[in-house]
């Protein structure tokens, strides 16, 4: 039957199709980079799609025009690099896009196809390294088989000079016809085995990934890091609705891998930044705190000065999504923070705030050892000294320095009167013995008189918080926290606003904590002079008890649980971060230890079983005839006999086995018969006296028999006359 095969033209068409798909895949991977090349990429995608859908378009480009395209791209790229100094990633991405578009239009021979594969791989790797996204895994799994298939087609078309300059003509071309033809020639059995091979390759790749020796050099060079713009709600200057805007976004902000959900309070607060300075209706992170920053350059571990009384050695791994903030969400004091790569890191001791130089554009992982979840922070010496010297009646000054900024009220006299009126309404005598009592009273007042709404009402002229307080309309967390801070300052308590995340959900598929952007929140911290601590106060309705001594703050666990397909998909991401992105020498050692443990257990198990068998055998040996029928005994003896026979002839058996394994045709009856006759003839030939005539006959027949034995397969009918002749020679006396 004649085999159906793809023609040379069709193979070239398939090659074109796969090259186009690889280019599109590369563009897909680049799309996840936030490097301001979006429009360029979109235009490039359209330019790649056009010759892919209608390859005939390529023919309309005059061949000579390609001479100018190369230098033009070069000029464009050089200009792009110069204009973007020192930022080299966006021009690099644009360079690759331009080259891929060029390759999508220009005729492709073997070398150009290899270029497409390499450029696409480069795109995937750059995008993977910059984003650390799970998409990289999907894209590389799509890239690998297509690239392999393209390499295969290129290899098949590489027939020396025969087809070297052949280019598809695209006459009467249609994708429908090509796909139909491909369907006709496809052998699905072979395709199935191909799939098995691919799965094996991925498995081997996984094994290599795990087994590749890693060295904890502790000097990982930051490679292709991209910075990005942070969310304005988590920056140093926060507008009144900025946090609320973040709340509209339900995407995941942080995934936290901790020892147990029982170690997380029921309502966890993830502190990112404090805003101490209030001016013109905006809270800011004051310059005086920024000046106090302890800066560390290129460190991979930061050891906190905070020491915990009890340190259970728990490790919390945070995976913060890219583009959120340069400030690191932390629940409280901790012992140590570690990074996967060297980082420029700042600690603001006055504010208990930690930040990087810039917000990462990709997932940023850090590990915190011994995390504390307390409601309060110890105040620093500077703060204690500043607040103890301050008389309660002293007026706050403009341009005050921290910690006095926490008492600052840049309000008009009229607005201050309004605040006084509110305070009098809360307690006519203003007899607050402590910050805790004050906090409880104000929180209850705010919760009792103001409703919560993401769409605040009643913000009028003048200071937005004061006007909101006056209006008694609904408001969001920033207004509640801001109102609390202003009232506390008016009452003489140092207070500051804190922004970060509150709460979260539990993913039971992989057991980790999820904080979403919709958990973004603003709350307040008030200074308690009696304990010399900053105490967390959340005046927003529905967020915990107003009494700061309430036992409910000690409750742990019991979070909302994420279920369904989304939870499962999200668990893939944490697995990606845990098992792939952050796989390191420690994991390797841990894995080796686990394997060692399992092996040890298996050996012990085996030993135990062997011991039991030996003991049983010994017992039987001591009284062999009990519990055995004569038939069983005979059976055992026969088995022993066979084992001995096999042991005696083991090499011969192995030789036969290997020969059969290597050459199954050795079982051919013609070969076996030829072999037998050859042996007999050679025995005969070894006899001392032989006539010349016999020798001549022997040589002829031996050559024929050897041809039958070792040559191509011969039918029995053709071999029979030779066998007969060989027998005749064998019967003849050798010396006559």
């Amino acid at each position, binding site marked *: 039957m004649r085999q159906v095969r793809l023609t040379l033209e069709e193979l070239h068409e398939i090659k074109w199709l796969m090259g186009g798909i690889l280019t599109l895949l590369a563009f897909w991977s680049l799309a996840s980079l936030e490097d301001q090349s979006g429009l360029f990429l979109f235009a490039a995608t359209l330019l790649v799609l056009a010759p892919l859908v209608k390859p005939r378009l390529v023919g309309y480009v005059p061949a000579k025009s390609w001479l100018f395209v190369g230098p033009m791209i070069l000029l464009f790229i050089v200009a792009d690099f110069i204009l973007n100094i020192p930022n080299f990633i966006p021009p690099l991405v644009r360079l690759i896009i331009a080259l891929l578009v060029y390759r999508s239009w220009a005729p492709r021979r073997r070398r150009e196809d290899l270029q497409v594969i390499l450029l696409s791989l480069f795109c995937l790797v750059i995008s993977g390294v910059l984003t650390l996204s799970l998409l990289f895994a999907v894209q*590389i799994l799509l890239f690998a088989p297509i690239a392999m298939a393209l390499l295969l087609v290129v290899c098949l078309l590489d027939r020396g000079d025969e087809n070297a300059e052949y280019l598809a003509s695209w006459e009467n071309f249609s994708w429908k016809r090509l796909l139909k033809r491909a369907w006709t020639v496809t052998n699905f059995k072979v395709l199935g085995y191909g799939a098995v091979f691919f799965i094996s390759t991925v498995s081997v790749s996984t094994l290599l990934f795990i087994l590749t020796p890693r060295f904890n*050099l502790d000097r990982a060079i930051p*490679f292709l890091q991209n910075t990005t713009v942070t969310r304005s709600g988590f920056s140093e200057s926060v507008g009144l609705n900025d946090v609320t805007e973040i709340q509209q976004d339900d995407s995941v902000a942080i995934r936290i891998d901790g020892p147990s959900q029982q170690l997380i309070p029921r309502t966890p607060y993830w502190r990112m930044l404090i805003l101490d300075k209030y001016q013109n209706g905006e809270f800011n992170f004051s310059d005086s705190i920024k000046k106090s920053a302890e800066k560390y350059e290129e460190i991979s571990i930061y050891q906190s000065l905070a020491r915990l009384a009890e340190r259970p050695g728990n490790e919390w791994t945070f995976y913060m999504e890219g583009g959120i903030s340069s400030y690191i969400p932390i629940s409280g004091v901790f012992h140590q923070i570690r990074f996967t790569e060297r980082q420029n890191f700042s600690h603001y001791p006055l504010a208990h705030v930690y930040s990087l130089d810039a917000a990462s554009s990709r997932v940023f992982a850090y590990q915190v050892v011994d995390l504390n979840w307390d409601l309060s922070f110890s105040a620093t010496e500077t703060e204690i000294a500043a607040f103890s010297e301050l008389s309660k009646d002293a007026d706050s000054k403009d341009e005050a320095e921290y910690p006095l900024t926490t008492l600052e009220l840049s309000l008009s006299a009229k607005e201050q009167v309004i605040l006084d009126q509110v305070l009098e309404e809360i307690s006519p005598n203003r007899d607050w013995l402590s910050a805790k009592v004050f906090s409880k009273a104000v929180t209850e007042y705010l919760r009792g008189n103001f409703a919560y709404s993401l769409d605040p009402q009643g913000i009028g002229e003048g200071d937005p918080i004061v006007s909101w307080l006056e209006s008694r309309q609904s408001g969001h967390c920033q207004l509640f926290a801001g109102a609390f801070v202003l009232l506390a300052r008016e009452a003489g308590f140092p207070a500051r606003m804190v922004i970060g995340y509150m709460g979260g959900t539990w993913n039971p598929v992989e057991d980790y904590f999820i904080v979403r952007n919709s958990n973004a929140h603003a709350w307040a911290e008030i200074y308690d002079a009696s304990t010399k601590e900053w105490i967390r106060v959340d005046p927003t309705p529905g967020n915990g008890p107003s009494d700061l001594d309430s036992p409910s703050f000690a409750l742990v666990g019991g979070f909302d649980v994420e279920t369904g397909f989304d939870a499962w998909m999200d668990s893939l991401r944490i697995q990606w971060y845990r098992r792939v992105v952050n796989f390191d020498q420690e994991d390797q050692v841990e894995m080796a230890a686990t394997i060692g443990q399992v092996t040890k257990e298996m050996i012990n198990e085996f030993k135990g079983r062997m011991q039991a068998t030996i003991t049983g055998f010994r017992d039987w040996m001591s009284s062999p005839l009990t519990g055995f029928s004569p038939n069983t005994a005979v059976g055992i003896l026969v088995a022993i006999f066979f084992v001995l026979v096999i042991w005696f002839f083991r090499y011969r058996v192995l*030789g036969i086995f290997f020969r059969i394994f*290597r050459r199954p045709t050795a079982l051919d009856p013609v070969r076996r018969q030829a072999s037998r006759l050859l042996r007999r003839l050679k025995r005969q030939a070894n006899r001392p006296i032989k006539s010349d005539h016999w020798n001549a006959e022997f040589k002829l027949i031996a050559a024929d028999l050897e041809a039958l034995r070792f040559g*191509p397969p011969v039918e029995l009918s053709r071999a029979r006359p030779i066998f007969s002749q060989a027998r005749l020679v064998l019967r003849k006396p050798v010396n006559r």
Partner: protein
Amino acid sequence: MADIRADQKTWQDWTDPDFFCEAKRLESRFFPLFFRQIVPARTQETKLTITGWMMIIISLGIGSAAYNTSSNILFMTLSLLLSSFILSGILSHMNFRKMRWALEAPSHLQVGEAGMGEVDVDNRKNLFPTMGICFLVESDAVDKTYRLYTPYVMSAREKTKLEWTFVPKARGFCKVRVLGIESKFPFGFLRKAKLIDIEEEVPVWPARVDYTFKPSGNGRRFLSGMTKRKAGQGNDLLNLRHYERGDPPRLIHWKATARMNRLMIRQLAEEGESGFHLFVDPDKEIWDSENFELMCSLVCSLADDLFQMNRLESIIVAGESPELIREIRDLHDFFNRLAVIQPKIVNTKTMFSSHSNTISFRPAGRERVLVYVGDNEAGQTNS
């Protein structure tokens, strides 16, 4: 039997590189026997292609970047590249498995006429196709090694023939060789080659030349209608014999064939004109190298034409016993001898004087050879 031995000569078993090595076959220890299954004898050559070198350089680059940055994305890419190398090796091994091939050289060649060499390729795998294999072949006739490519895909159990042509330039023996097999399958990273030098010698007959041949009286003429009790091209049935290669199909006796269940040929009695006896004298004293070649070509052409006309009785080479030309095989045997015949000193020149229709050849200058029937000039080569 000779054909069985000839088959063996051009037959190779790909799966067993040390097949013809008896010493190794005697190995009976387990480990050497076992390891030989894994690492076969070094009859194969594997070289990196430019693509392969490029992939290695890229792998090294990605590997060093991975170690310097501890980026697992790069480690992942590296491991995928390495596993694709492994896959490439496995597929390449499978591609060569159970491949059988044999060289089929033509039985003879003629100077100035295209000859064709064939390589029979058989993919004996039950499931997997074989792709992108190339055979390196050459012949003495042309100073060029040809690459014969199998079809893009050779399905399981598929056989194919690869052919190439060449034109021999001189008579003698022409060697036709298969130098080896090579393939870059599957991804073009490696060029895997198996170097096997298998060759066959093919006789190259002298070239055909233009000549004129007009014997006076056309030899001895018999009376018309008389037949000889000798096989020939007459009308009377002389005998029935088994079919032999080269017999014209029109002579098949269909009734006898049906009865005997094998092809039978009508042997007819000869009638009419008598034949000629060719006398070839390779005497060194008569011929120089140029007109000797011309004489060989003339003898070849004339013998062929006379045989076609059924007028060639026998051929005598001076100093050797005469050979009767009964069938095409006899003629071909003579041509094979003619392919290698060289001028020599001939001591005894047996002329069959009893045959007045003996054709002999004499030189006439460097570029002309005359044909004599008996003592009469009957023709010559045309310049």
